[in-house]
């Protein structure tokens, strides 16, 4: 149980830091709202709902990328990651806590973004919401892992999207599929499988990412 106590302490710290600094969530909210406004005016009238569904997923992935880019900034600024790595907790707890905190920010942004999408384009299907929820898990798990890899490099701003976007393609395929087809079960199952597989991989490999 100490593992989850460590995760809780680390995730609580991330939420507290965001509450104090307000660096991540406001920029995610402004970005996703701005994207929907731009899409609303750039899509020709009479465009299909399929096109709008695609745009929803573009907005989600890039909003998440914004949050992921900020995820390890507090650790990078004063090399605090070294102290966390030295602590006797399982190093995967750092990944899990950071993923949960990033997930909280992403979900908070989507609580605003999804109704906005429904307002600007067309209503939301339950399968879209389920797809977003499942994709969020994968985005935050994989994105946090990639963020930790990128944070120790000089080209971190470049490396994060370069590594993350190819890994997010299956999530976009699953997400768009779950939003557009009549029987979305197959796509939702695919998203769930992706989450499970990559969560296991990231959990097991995180230790090797944070030690030089």
């Amino acid at each position: 149980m100490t593992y989850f106590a460590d995760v809780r302490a680390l995730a609580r710290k991330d939420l507290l830091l965001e509450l104090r600094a307000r660096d991540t969530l406001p920029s995610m909210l402004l970005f996703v709202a701005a994207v929907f406004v731009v899409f609303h005016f750039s899509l020709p009238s009479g465009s299909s709902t399929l096109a709008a569904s695609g745009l929803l997923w573009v907005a989600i992935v890039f909003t998440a990328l914004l949050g992921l880019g900020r995820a390890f900034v507090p650790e990078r600024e004063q090399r605090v990651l070294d102290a966390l790595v030295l602590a006797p907790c399982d190093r995967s707890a750092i990944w899990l806590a950071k993923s949960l905190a990033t997930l909280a920010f992403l979900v908070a942004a989507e609580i605003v973004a999804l109704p906005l999408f429904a307002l600007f384009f067309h209503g939301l299907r339950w399968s879209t919401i389920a797809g977003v929820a499942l994709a969020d898990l994968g985005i935050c798990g994989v994105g946090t892992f990639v963020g930790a890899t990128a944070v120790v490099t000089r080209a971190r701003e470049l490396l994060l999207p370069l590594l993350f976007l190819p890994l997010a393609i299956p999530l976009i395929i699953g997400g768009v599929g779950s939003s557009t087809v009549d029987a979305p079960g197959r796509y939702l199952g695919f998203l769930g499988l992706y989450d499970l597989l990559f969560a296991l991989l990231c959990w097991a490999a995180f230790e090797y990412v944070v030690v030089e």
Partner: protein
Amino acid sequence: MIAARGVGRRFGDKRVLRALDFELPDRGFMTIIGPNGSGKTTLLRLCAGLSRPSEGELHVDVARERIGFLAHEPLVYRELTAVENLELYGKLYRVRERRERIGMLLERFGLWDARRERVSSYSRGMQQRLALCRVLLHEPQLLILDEPYTALDGEGAKLLDAQLAELVGERTFLVSTHDPARTDQFATTGLALA
């Protein structure tokens, strides 16, 4: 406690440490001196387990939770207060009677009155004092200190001297410094890097 045999470290093409041999016995105090860029910090990071040698063998015979590492940076969150930072590390290190120990350290290093202020409002010297509190919080057996007197004023340096005097002979120390005269009174062995 620490034994190095032919330890080297490269970063790409750049060789920072070459064929280093030394031993530091349990409860010993080793001072590491050398000019900037000689690899002092790299060696300390290797001993702390934050990095792995490119060549040679390095044995550090102490569990991770018994190591206290003081780096160039204080390794604390700037937007948290001193108490919040130490609470976090106290939980991760499973420090018993955490609040009492945090209070005792903050008082000892003269940070009690500023304990509820964010670290971002601290001077560099106060941050270094907080970093020392963080290092000592879990009562480590091996203390790895990278230029511990950096940024400390006269009073802070005296507090650190007193803390070292109290622990020398009970704990093992690996300390890098540009001012070896300061730690001469404690050192049992030395290592000069070129």
